């Protein structure tokens, strides 16, 4: 396992960070939660963040926390598909395909919610007033989010990014 500074990874994959934060802000707006501060990209840790007021409902917490996971994953898969197939199946790609692959990988790689997002979701669901079903559902989700966040030290986010961009062609044509 080799070490590359986090800021360098963020710099190379900056579109993913920006899309992740835009998705957080978008879901805050959708959930009618006030956004107090936004950093779309910076060369320090964290590479981006959205500070919002504490949502009143658990569903709002889940929407804001998990929203970027779906937005980044779906956007990454859609952007990659028409570029991956010519490149890997037909050996016939152009520079735009290369840009699309880089962009889609960057976006997909930053799908995982951060440990901050996981903490926020966990704090919301562990409140006594929260329905037991939410708690049962939240345990594996939060567990996976933590695993993803910790796993990024071992390139799990990069593997996820590769998996997302390769998934659609593999599922459809293999």
């Amino acid at each position, binding site marked *: 396992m080799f070490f590359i500074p986090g800021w360098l990874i963020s710099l190379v994959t900056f579109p993913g960070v*920006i899309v992740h934060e835009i998705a957080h802000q978008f879901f805050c707006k959708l959930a009618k939660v006030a956004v107090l501060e936004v950093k779309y990209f910076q060369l320090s840790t964290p590479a981006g963040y959205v500070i919002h007021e504490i949502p009143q409902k658990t569903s709002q917490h889940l929407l804001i926390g998990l929203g970027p996971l779906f937005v980044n994953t779906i956007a990454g898969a859609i952007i990659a598909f*028409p570029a991956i197939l010519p490149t890997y199946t037909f050996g016939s790609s152009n520079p735009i395909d290369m840009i699309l692959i880089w962009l889609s990988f960057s976006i997909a790689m930053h799908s995982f919610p951060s440990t901050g997002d996981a903490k926020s979701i966990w704090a919301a669901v562990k409140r006594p007033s929260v329905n037991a079903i939410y708690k049962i559902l939240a345990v594996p989700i939060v567990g996976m989010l933590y695993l993803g966040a910790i796993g990024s030290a071992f390139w799990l986010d990069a593997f996820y990014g590769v998996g997302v961009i390769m998934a659609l062609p593999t599922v459809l044509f293999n």
Partner: protein
Amino acid sequence: MNNEHTMEHPVCEACKSNVPDPAYAFPLCRNCREALINRPFPQWIKIAMILIVALMLYSGFKFPLAFNAGLANQSAEKAEAVADYTTAISDYQKILALFPDSEEHKARLAICYIKNGELQQAAGILKNINDKKLSQKVVKELNVLIEEVKPQN
């Protein structure tokens, strides 16, 4: 004393003047909450979003082409597996119409032509891919086929 005053008359955290909406834990007045919910995106983010959406649209535009090529490839492989070379030839031609640089698929088309007895068409393609880099598997397959169809003295 000041703290007591704040507790009795809390003010909005954003504008520091209006009374916060008591329905929410975070002290924001109705106007400020509305403004922060609808916080505008900065200009450069809007431009980045437009660029990303444009690339997504470009991908969306190319999606059906790539999808059809993928389907044709799948169909060609299946047709080849059951020795239906006419179908395989038609599918490989579709792929090459979309991706004319795919040397590997040109070679597969040549293989299907040979197996279908269309040697002239195969020869035309083979001339074209003569100096191109191909996978070992395809080269081996082509060499075996060429040996088989070579006129015997």
